């Protein structure tokens, strides 16, 4: 190899390496910053108490519970709908203009700004269907927002299943449905879980879609049904930093809230990853 070429390779490789490290460094700076600022506020009472003293004291329990409700609600709606659509798209629908149209629309749906989902959710669920500001309306809005992610990951995971396995199943006299249930889905499942993880992370972190559909500014009690309003971590964070009663005094609470939100998302990711890994191991894939 010519020395000039070797030098340019050296430079390019190191540049790429540096950029990769930089991403990790930036991530750690953000995490570290939140951790240092937020850690001092974290205590059992912060996690388990109602907010008090105009949100400069007390805890964030209703926001944690609220976010939990919204995650569960939106996934309960979006996961079955998304996975079933993905199965239909990949397994049943033939490659024609209609399928291309649906796929284009799904991609467009994924590109819509979350605030637009918020407005749509308010118009349809809150006003038209008269759900009011409620867990139901918020969950459906968030669910619609993550639907394309789930549909696309399901479709891609199914597409990745080797045709020879389907043929093997058909050749033994299995029907299409049996083949999907017993051969295709178990193999695709670990990858479908990836879509679920992404969705949970997005749902727990989004503010705009819940702004007009469910989120309460201050509500020191826990929800008793799906037609109740709730507080939610991202919105609570927004309130504490921009429009609380005393922004300066509630600042540490804001960092604490941010830390709790990040930790929850991390834990969910880790659990889902563990499920995925154990499943892969069971199937002996890769």
């Amino acid at each position, binding site marked *: 190899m010519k020395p000039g070429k070797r030098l340019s390779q050296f430079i390019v490789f190191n540049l790429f390496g540096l950029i990769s490290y930089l991403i990790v460094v930036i991530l750690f700076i953000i995490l570290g910053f939140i951790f240092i600022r937020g850690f001092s506020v974290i205590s059992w009472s912060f996690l388990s108490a109602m907010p008090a003293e105009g949100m400069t004291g007390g805890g964030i329990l209703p926001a944690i519970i609220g976010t939990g409700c919204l995650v569960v609600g939106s996934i309960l709606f979006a996961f079955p709908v998304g996975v079933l659509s993905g199965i239909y798209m990949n397994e049943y629908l033939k490659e024609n203009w209609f399928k291309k149209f649906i796929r284009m629309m799904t991609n467009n749906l994924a590109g819509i700004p979350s605030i637009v989902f918020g407005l749509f959710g308010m118009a349809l669920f809150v006003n038209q269907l008269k759900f009011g500001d409620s867990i139901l309306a918020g969950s459906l809005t968030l669910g619609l927002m993550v639907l394309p992610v789930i549909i696309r990951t399901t479709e891609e995971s199914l597409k990745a299943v*080797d045709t020879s396995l389907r043929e093997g199943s058909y050749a033994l006299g299995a029907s299409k449905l049996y083949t999907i249930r017993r051969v295709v889905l178990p193999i695709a499942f670990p990858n479908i879980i990836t879509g679920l993880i992404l969705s949970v992370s997005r749902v727990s972190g989004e503010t705009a879609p819940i702004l007009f559909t469910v989120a309460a500014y201050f509500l020191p009690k826990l929800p008793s049904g799906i037609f109740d309003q709730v507080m939610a971590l991202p919105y609570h964070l927004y309130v504490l930093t921009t429009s609380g009663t005393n922004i300066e005094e509630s600042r540490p609470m804001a960092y604490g809230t941010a830390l709790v939100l990040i930790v929850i998302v991390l834990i969910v990711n880790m659990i889902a990853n563990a499920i995925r890994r154990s499943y892969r191991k069971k199937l002996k894939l890769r």
Partner: protein
Amino acid sequence: MPEYKVETQNFNLFYGDFQALKDINFHAEPNTITAFIGPSGCGKSTLLRVFNRMNDLIDGVKVTGKAFIDNMEVNDRSIRVDELRKQVGMVFQKPNPFPKSIFENVAFGLRVNGISDRHFIEERVVESIRKAALWDEVKDKLKKSAMELSGGQQQRLCIARTLAVEPSLILMDEPASALDPISTGKIEDLIFELKKSYTIIIVTHNMQQAGRVSDYTAFFYLGALIEWDKTIKIFTNPTNIQTQHYVTGKFG
């Protein structure tokens, strides 16, 4: 017992506008092995897939003429394709075990049939693995994943999986082309052994293999069945000059 296990009459198959099979007239007697040979794209795999209607999975396939198994027309409206496929087993080019345990792979076809009697399934699984000459190698690890087996073992597992459903006809699409010589030898011994109870059609690119295992050989070229006769005749004294060129390795 019908005279012919498998038969086609003036059979044509089209992929859209492309004619992949041209006026095929072929039959095979019970308990014989027929080898389909010919260069890539000559239609031999396509014809193989006519008998268990695997071509149904491809869009835009049209057929004319007739194909029979035990005098029953495979494309007849009254035929249920899943029932047909239970009678006609298939082994593929690439070993394709399911990512399940060795036991569950062989039990798959039984469960498809709605059999849930554990005792029966166990017996049939063991019996099928034995018939596929795999028992000694896997008897201590039936619960282990089939993905841990070697390629040759996987292919014999796929044969066991096919045998478990008790088909009467077995289609093999280049079953040894992805395997090493030793595994290939084992598969060939097995095919020979299976002839006693089954009718077998095997597609192969390997002339020696066709010569070694088959009773009859059919040579295909550009979608047509050029010549078809006793294997010994095809390899020693073919009638057609194209066949002669192909089996002697002048083209293909």
